[in-house]
């Protein structure tokens, strides 16, 4: 029983860790500097 609880707890802890990593990666995509910024020539066709 104790080993079962340990296995379940390890699985849960790894999942929470993976969730935090996924969240950080996805937030990094949206929170970085404007990636495609470039000079735009207004008035040019």
């Amino acid at each position, binding site marked *: 029983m104790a080993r*079962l609880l340990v296995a379940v707890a390890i699985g*849960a802890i790894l999942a929470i860790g993976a969730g935090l990593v996924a969240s950080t990666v996805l937030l990094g995509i*949206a*929170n970085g500097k*404007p990636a*495609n910024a470039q000079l735009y020539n207004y*008035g040019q066709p």
Partner: protein
Amino acid sequence: MRRALGLLAAGLGSFLLVSALVLRFYVADQAIKSPLNQYQVSTYVAPDVTYFNPTLLRELTGVTMRDTVTVEGDQAGGSAGRAVWNQFSYWYDETSRLAYQQLTQRLAFSRRSGLLIDCCATSVGGKSGVRVSGQGYAWPFGTRHATYDVFDTTLLRPEPARYAGTAVIDGLATDKFVEQVPATRFRTQTLPGRLVGLADQASVTLGEFYRTTTTYWVEPVTGQVVDRSSDEDLSLRGGGARVLTLFRGDLAMDQASVAVLAAAAKSASSRASLVTARIPLPAGLAGVILLALGCVLALVGGRQPEYDPGYREAAAFQPTGPRR
């Protein structure tokens, strides 16, 4: 062996189940929102425009007007819940090869609901201290078939945009919303009488009227506007009659801009459905099954079966100590 497999299955099941819950209820809330680092250049074109050119000081008709709108996120001004985007809009008369106007705008809004927030040096058309409310750059994630208040940057107040059905834009299913503003006087302008054919008056004060029918095509999962057209009429009127047309035309986003916005919305929508449904649902289901299976194997698989004769003999054996 069965017990070891049970422990492994229980651990994996627990991992999948908790991952599904974390993705759906934590990662989705954290990561699915409007970006701070937006950068987008969109072009609107209006044929057959009539407008008052401030350089030539006269009305021009039948021209093609191009409005190039650049939106860039102010990363430093944003936060976990709020985005701040700056916009620069350049109007160019392609027929006469004349610049018409440049407008700047800075709006802060909720990254989830798209509702504007009064903060962060908001400005519209160069005016600071404007009270803003309603939808601005974005609509809410999970846009519904309802009426939304959209902040009108000419009237400087929210106006209702009513749901008007669905439409496919560049292969993307969108909801269509229409904002209709009847001719509305929103301010007065004082200008030299000669500009409006009243040479005998040094200056005249006229009411400035605005009418528009603006249509938004919104990708409903992300609330991103992927297309927009605006039939606008801005005029000066005196005694109920039109005296001067400041701008009259039907601005529509060009196909290249629509394609870019639609591709971005598709990508964001796909990412959103990945963390809200496509991964959590199967992972959660597999997790529950594995966890249950693992528990059964680990608990039952550890016991010796009762029909094992060796087990019975072992259980029945009672060692006897030395007799005194």
